[in-house]
């Protein structure tokens, strides 16, 4: 069993045009920077991307947008991204906006083999249009199906060659869920350690969910909103 690849390009070697991808991260926090670069380099097109956000103009998924590689985005918040807006208005880009908790739970459902889940989020709104509703107790829920994604591209802090992953702080976000949801899950990590180096009580994603792993170097980790307390 060798899950270790030398770099992003080799780990993504079989990723084709028209693929459905999940990409971890919240804003620019915890995004798989190296996988995104490799996608740009490969030039694969007509991608469907499931990601909470769509990056900014010159970083994250914005790089794929600039390159016209994305056909459809499934996201909860697409934020400040001028190129995104342009492509959306021109009809080049299809966008499906869904509640953030629904996005997360549809990933969880895939990773846990549950074909669908019920959530109250969006009931009575346009999100519910065309969706099945059902009352449990005194509340109405929407039926939401598990995501199906060919690949999940995630970023972890540490991983071992069995694919066990550990995340750091709020860069965890959607990463473990997508790691569990992908048909082929590719994890980029800041540090690759030996099996046994990670505490078995504290692994966030067991290696059974992870198919390929590689070490990313020189992470940019761009900050979207630098808010600080001034030192007095």
């Amino acid at each position, binding site marked *: 069993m060798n899950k270790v690849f030398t770099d992003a390009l080799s780990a993504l070697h079989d990723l084709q045009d028209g693929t459905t991808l999940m990409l971890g991260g919240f804003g620019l*926090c915890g995004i798989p920077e190296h996988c995104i670069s490799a996608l740009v380099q490969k030039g694969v097109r007509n991608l469907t991307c499931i990601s909470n956000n769509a990056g900014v103009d010159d970083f994250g998924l914005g790089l794929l947008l600039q390159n016209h590689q994305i056909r459809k985005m499934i996201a909860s918040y697409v934020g400040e991204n001028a190129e995104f807006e342009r492509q959306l208005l021109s009809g080049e880009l299809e966008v499906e906006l869904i*509640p953030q*908790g629904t996005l997360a739970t549809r990933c969880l459902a895939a990773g846990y083999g549950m074909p669908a889940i019920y959530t109250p989020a969006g009931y009575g709104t346009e999100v519910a249009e065309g969706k099945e509703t059902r009352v449990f107790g005194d509340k109405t829920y929407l039926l939401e199906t598990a995501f199906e994604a060919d690949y999940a591209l995630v970023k972890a802090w540490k991983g071992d060659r069995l694919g066990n992953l550990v995340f750091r702080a709020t860069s965890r976000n959607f990463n473990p*869920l997508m790691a569990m949801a992908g048909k082929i899950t590719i994890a980029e990590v800041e540090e690759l350690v030996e099996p046994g180096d990670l505490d078995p009580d504290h692994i966030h994603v067991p290696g059974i969910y992870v198919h390929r792993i590689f070490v990313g170097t020189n992470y940019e980790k761009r900050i979207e909103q630098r808010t600080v307390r001034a030192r007095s």
Partner: protein
Amino acid sequence: MLDKNGIARTIARELRDGYYVNLGIGIPTLVANFIPEGMDVQLQSENGLLGMGPFPWEGEEDPDLINAGKQTITTLPGSVFFDSAMSFGMIRAGKVDLTVLGAMEVSQNGDIANWKIPGKMVKGMGGAMDLVASARHIVVAMQHVNKAGESKLLPACTLPLTGLACVQKVVTELGVFGFDPQGFVLLERAPGVGVEHIKSHTLGFLTAHGSEPEITWP
């Protein structure tokens, strides 16, 4: 008339010791500045943090540590990180005691619209639909009227909804509003604001007797 801090301070009176609270972007964030001394309130950030601390000292920003507004923040002793499924799991399960968020419109039956303006670029609902569908106690912090001077407290929302009949309280620069089966109920007036002024700026059905007290803070 309340300023933004006055609105936040008014909402902070809803806090109770031991509460878990989710604060939206904008005025709601300011509520954190008015947590009473000695009261233990834990802030939940839906990107995966319980126990959110203040902004970091300059130079100590950690790109791996942000809040749902994508701002760099810090942790506190006892903070916990978790993934987005657990984050919305605890929200959906009603474990968050109080949610404060902004709105574009609130209707007299408690509907809220805060995510989309037809014809304008839509950025998405983020976690707002999950929060309003699930939180046990939802308070809206907003300006009473929009930039065109039109009431944001309406008989029915005109904008696409975020959630149905979910708002329990609205705090604006003019006062504090609850709900009864008829519609909005004026609970408290902002200092110096008369009931006629409030009525004339409220399009939704409003019960207001003029005897409502002025807002005071502890």
